[in-house]
């Protein structure tokens, strides 16, 4: 026992260790503060938070969970990208491979999918909690607006992923969704006032979404690029803003 303690002390006194970990772990207020501010991940937090904010019954952890699930989706999503090719002749077979051949592939794909649904649920309930605690009120108005944008992006992330398995479920769901785009006033070929700008089936918003007049190879590629690159980058950037604003707006809301 003493030997182990001795070795630990020797190890934590080396230059290498000290160059990585900037502070000791003795329980002092100074170390607790350093633990937060000298850690790139933890410094999202203020050193101290109001006592009520730590209560689970205040935030229900919902914003944090939404972010965590986003990270989970990023990790599992990148792993899925190793196996999945957005090519109409391969995509479905890649899904089957993931389900039956790839080690842990089934768990990977399934948990990525359920996590996507979970994120939609947690983001909605995060919004509900923020509303019920009146946390959108001054000075946090703009962060609520950012939140609504994140809500839309969460829906779009999930929606673009829906087509990727290239199965009947995704194909017809995207059909329903993008056909609504065709009904957009002025900019969709079936919407009111379509002739105003000369909008036709081959130059309207639906066409832009699908990369064609029907769901085909270009649509799959577009869904893939938006799902794996475009929307995650935009959503990630907005999340950074969102968290930054939580701090700049005076930290988590609380009784005035």
């Amino acid at each position, binding site marked *: 026992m003493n030997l182990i303690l001795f070795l630990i002390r020797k190890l934590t006194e080396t230059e290498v260790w000290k160059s990585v970990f900037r502070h000791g772990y003795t329980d002092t207020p100074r170390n607790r503060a350093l*633990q*937060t501010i000298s850690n790139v991940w*933890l410094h999202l*937090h203020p*050193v*101290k*938070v*109001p006592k*009520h904010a*730590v209560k689970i*019954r205040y935030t229900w*952890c919902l914003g*944090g*969970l939404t972010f*965590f699930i986003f990270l*989970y989706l990023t990790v599992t999503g990148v792993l899925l990208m190793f196996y999945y090719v957005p090519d109409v002749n391969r995509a*479905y077979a890649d*899904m*089957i491979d993931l389900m039956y051949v790839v080690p842990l592939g089934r*768990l990977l*794909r*399934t948990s990525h*999918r*359920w*996590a996507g649904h*979970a994120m*939609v649920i947690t983001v909605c309930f995060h919004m509900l909690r923020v*509303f*019920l*605690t*009146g946390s*959108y*009120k*001054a000075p*946090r*108005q703009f962060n609520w607006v950012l939140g609504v944008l994140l*809500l839309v992006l969460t*829906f779009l992330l*999930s929606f673009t992923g829906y087509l990727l398995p*290239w*199965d*009947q*479920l995704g*194909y*017809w*769901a995207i*059909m*329903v969704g993008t056909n*609504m*785009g065709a*009904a*957009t*006033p002025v900019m969709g070929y079936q*919407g009111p*006032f379509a002739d105003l700008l000369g909008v036709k089936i081959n130059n309207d918003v639906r066409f832009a979404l699908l990369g064609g007049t029907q*769901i085909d190879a270009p649509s799959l590629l577009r869904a893939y690029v938006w799902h794996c690159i475009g929307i995650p980058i935009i959503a990630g950037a907005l999340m950074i803003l969102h968290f930054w604003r939580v701090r700049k707006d005076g930290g988590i*809301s*609380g*009784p*005035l």
Partner: protein
Amino acid sequence: MSNHAEAQVANNKKTEKVFSWPNLVAKEFIAAILCTVILLVYSYYVDAPLRELANPGEPENPAKAPWYFLGLQEILVYFDPWIAGVIVPSIILVGLMAIPYIDVNPKGNGGYCFRDRRFAITVFLFGFIFWYALIVVGTYMRGPFWSFFWPWETWSFDFPTPPPSVSLPNWLGIPALLIYFGLGMLVPAVAFWKFAKQLGFIRYNITMMLLLLMLGMLIKMALRLMFNVKYVLQTPWFNI
């Protein structure tokens, strides 16, 4: 949910602060672990859906959007696609973003308290529940050709032809709309004068417009379900 009294108590102690490490971080860590465990266990037992290979020649019937859009798909029954699929979601989003700017009531910031914000909370909860109620109907009660089935009924393809729908003639529809929106804007302004004055002219109008649009949707749905009304307003370019 803590009530008003608790919020008051919390109020007095608001300056009390604790270190994020470990008080907050530990809870976040536990939440993350629990979340991961639940996800993995659930995924282990329930497979993600995968149907047959996509086939453009063989439509799914019913073809359903992902569940979170089924509320919108459900109102396709009552409204034309440009309203259900484009206008309604746009108004919802703009309305959501407008909330902090039209709700000027400074009370109830930072705690669960219904009493100080009866109107705001009632309207928001109503909308929230409405959205999910439609999703439940769309998910569990719509079968082939989007016809209605109770969850315990088996889907079948032979169901009675729906009764023919009628549209309100414009001489009835236009006045009805004018009266609905006109009275809807005026009556609350008179009946709740203090509330309207507190909001100010612009905020009051935006708030009431959003509220009337939401209730209007419900009314149109009721008209359809009870009287088979197809449109309440017809023009050469679009119908509502």
